């Protein structure tokens, strides 16, 4: 694969990191056996992670999962109890924050309220021996970069939340740090501003090629922005992978459950390689599980395919094969969510538990799906995920 990399057209382009194996060696940021405990509470357990130069990595997880603790350990703001961190080949494990090399942006913006926008951005540039004119030039350039050239003389309180966060970003990158840390930078903003700003941050990160770590609890944000996502829970890393990997191939039940919506059913592996859910057998990959094992079967609502009253009559072009795992279901509730319909189905073959399925507006119209009606739905074999019970 090496020769393929060598003919990449732009040398600054970001490695399309997909998993640990693709990280150029040595990695830019190495975290080894990191632990953090507060009294009896263990916030981080044996974390090891490599991040390549120029990568955009998201730490994703529910609140209290340790993602912010990990970020603050990297920043030297909350020292880990044990473990090593190396940045650019330098051991920074116990260095104070001021001796590390990073810029940081917080959810609260943390702009200095009594300084103008200009003075805020220049804060890290002054006092470093740079001539005044150079500082002013750099500030103007940064304001241009974040798209707020006219606001230099204003005070933070006079700007909107989105504008303030851009200034905070400009201040953080002003000193050209080797690492950019973003601690829930978009969480305090309105939904629209959030979507807009996440594109801008991503574009800026690509342009600068700066290694970036963002902490978020918003899976959509992580999926949209990250090259790689680190999913965390209870102080451990559950899975590391590209957004599509995380979404399509969650390696643990927690990840499957946390990313996107899921239906969960108790299941048991049958001797013929199929699984039993409710009262019937379904075809499903059973890697790593033996016959008789208890498991949890997971399927996402969007993966369920509707087939109208008689699936065998309608053969869609992209699914030429005979559908597998086809079941009858009655529509109990339909909820219109704009982009699609969310339905609650009851299928006798699945037992008492309701099945939630999302159907496109188009499909609902075409197949005349309505509350009380009976349809056939397919649970595609490769979309039915199986996890050992209790995992």
């Amino acid at each position: 694969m090496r020769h393929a990399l060598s003919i990449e057209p732009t040398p600054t382009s970001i490695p399309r990191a997909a998993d640990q194996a693709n990280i150029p060696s040595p990695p830019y940021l190495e975290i080894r056996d990191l632990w953090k405990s507060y009294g009896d509470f263990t916030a981080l357990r044996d974390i090891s992670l490599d991040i390549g130069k120029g990568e955009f990595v998201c730490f994703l997880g529910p609140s209290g999962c340790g993602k912010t603790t990990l970020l603050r350990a990297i920043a030297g703001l909350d020292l880990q109890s044990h473990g090593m961190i190396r940045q650019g080949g330098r051991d920074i494990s116990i260095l104070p924050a001021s001796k590390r090399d990073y810029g940081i942006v917080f959810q609260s913006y943390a702009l200095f309220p009594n300084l103008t926008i200009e003075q805020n951005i220049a804060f890290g540039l002054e006092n470093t021996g740079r001539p005044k004119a150079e500082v002013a030039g750099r500030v103007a350039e940064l304001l241009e970069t974040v798209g707020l050239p006219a606001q230099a003389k204003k005070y933070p309180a006079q700007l909107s939340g989105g504008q303030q966060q851009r200034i905070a970003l400009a201040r953080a990158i002003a000193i050209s740090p080797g690492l950019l840390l973003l601690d829930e930078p978009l969480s305090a903003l309105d939904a629209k501003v959030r979507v807009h700003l996440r594109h801008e941050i991503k574009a800026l990160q690509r342009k600068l090629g700066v290694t970036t770590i963002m902490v978020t609890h918003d899976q959509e944000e992580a999926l949209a922005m990250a090259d790689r996502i680190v999913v965390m829970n209870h102080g451990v890393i559950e899975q590391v992978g590209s957004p599509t990997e995380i979404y399509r191939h969650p390696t643990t039940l927690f990840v499957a459950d946390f990313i996107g919506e899921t239906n969960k059913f108790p299941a048991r592996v049958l001797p013929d390689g199929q699984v039993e859910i409710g009262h019937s057998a379904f075809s499903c990959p059973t890697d790593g599980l033996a016959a008789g094992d208890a498991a949890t079967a997971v399927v996402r609502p969007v993966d369920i395919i509707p087939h109208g009253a008689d699936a065998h009559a309608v053969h869609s072009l992209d699914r030429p094969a005979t559908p597998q795992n086809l079941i009858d279901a009655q529509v109990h509730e339909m909820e219109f969510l704009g982009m699609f319909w969310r339905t609650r189905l009851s299928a006798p073959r699945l037992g008492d538990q309701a099945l939630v399925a999302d159907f496109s507006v188009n499909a609902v119209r075409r197949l005349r799906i309505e509350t009380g009606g009976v349809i056939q739905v397919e649970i595609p074999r490769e979309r039915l995920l199986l996890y050992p019970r209790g995992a």
Partner: protein
Amino acid sequence: MSLAIDYAPPGKRLRQQTSRDDRVKLGFMAVIGLYLIVALGAPLFVMLSKSLSTYRFDLAAFEFQVSDETGKTWADAVTAEALNRDLGVVTEKDLATNSDGRLAATKFFPEFNFRSPVHYRIRGTADGAAFLVGSTLEKGIEWREYDSATFRRVVLRPASTFGIENFKTYFSTPALARSIYNSVLMASISTVVTVSIAFALAYALTRSCMPLKGLFRGILTIPILVPSLLPGIALVYLFGNQGVFKDWLLGYSIYGPIGIVIGSVFFTLPHAFLIILTALSVADARHYEAAASLKASKWRTFTTVTVPGARYGLVSAAFVVFTLVITDFGLPKVIGGQYGMLAVDIYKQVIGQQNFEMGAVVSVILLVPAVLAFVVDRRMQKRQVALLSARAVPYAPKPSGRRDSLCFAFSCLVSLFVLGMIAMCQIAALVKFWPYDLTLTTKNFAFDLMDGGGWAAYANSIKLALLTAIFGSVIVFAGAYMVEKADGFRLGRGVFHFLAMMPMAVPGMVLGLAYIFFFNNPANPLSSIYGTMTILVVCTVTHFYTVAHLTALTALKQMDPEFESVGASLKQPFHRLFFRVTLPVCLPAILNIGIYLFVNAMTTVSAVVFLYSTDTKLASVAVLNMDDAGDIAPAAAMGMMIFYTNVVAKLLHAAVSRGLLTRTQAWR
């Protein structure tokens, strides 16, 4: 995916490399911590040990030998105890003394003549026995020989024992022990009256639509600007022996409980009023709307919404008033007459009888209710914070004719009381001889003709107030900054915060007395500041430390805690962030601390009354001393000078704040 392992890895917990910033911060904290230990912890400790020390002449510990006229032949050694048994020169009662007690050795030799050629030998029978020859201290069991002329100057020192002897003496002295009851009674009555009035006023200001709210608010805070002696003087003029309204008391005397309660209500009212006002201001309009929608009557709404909403404020105000009254010294000194109060007892024991140990005992007793009130109050305040909801909707009262007029009438009445007291002092200061000769005069302001320190005392007070405001603001703010913003040294910060909270629980009299014990000790290297302006400044800063500390802490807590993180990530030293951001943003709070310290330094009497010297007499103490000497009109005049000064200081503070705000805080 990592495996969850339920044990921590072996090896020591990592420790962050300390940066230069950390070391500088640590250094600062150590300096300010040391200040609090020297200015508060150590003096209180010494005072506590004093209260437990009893001094008594141990006659069995000294042995004498007398020579014949040749000075060569010695009689048998005999103890002082044996000599006293024969002579009876020192009674059992005289043996009990204090640390300064001295007993002349010649007392045991009735035939002593300093011209005689007879020689004397003296020694201790135990190591602890000590005696003085002139001012030279001698100790030990070696015989020492003196001729008669020198022996004349030999005095025995008492032995000190540790125990609760002093407390036993205190409680077996009815006049003293009764003060506990008196003080608690006066404080309780004043608390009930003050809190009721303050609640009604705060209610009027927050729940009615009466006019002139701002004016009432201003008038009701006036008593803060005068020493607590001043209402006492006003009461003397109004209801005293020559008082205009003497008859209103139906034969009862103003000197005593009545005067103490009225005066206490006057000077504690603003404190209670402001606390309850704050508590009522945070009311949630949604509770009132809910009550109205449930068709609750006005009275029901009042008892189920208004009062419970302010209950922590009420409790807090009650404790503040109780502590203020029980620890106040100025007012009962002026108006208390023969009615014994704890704070006055300390003064009488120390200044009147020079009985420092007993002063320390009363101080310890006075500490108990003050510390108790303080602890309960702190707990209450913590709960009050939890009560606040960020989503509360501010309550806006609707006009109601009857309620508004009632509120207005009541506010007028109380304002009249406050203004009347001040006006009485003003008149007293300006007329020749109340109430017989009402011609205006300025002779009462000729302080230099009277005892008390004259205009120099007034100048000293201004100097003290300015120095306290400047140094106090710097020390307090730096200390609060270290508590709030330094990382690590958790234990050090905890101890520091505890020390900073302590002064609130320590009455001024107690602090002042503790300073005497600690600083007026030749063995203390800091004893050189005793009797100087420095000790007055140190004492005053310490006395009012807590409220200033809390003000600074509140301001600092309102700042984004991530400022420091951002500063570090931008590789800026902490002092740059401090001077560029923290200080400017907190400037209004710092100015508030400054004016608070200034006003209190001008009015305080209790702590400094033990510490001033002839060169450092103060205006507030002059009020006390002139009143004591019977120069009541000049005392009132000096009190008014303090009032004017504080008013001017307040106005200046407002102007400076506004000027600075518009210049440096354009962002607000």
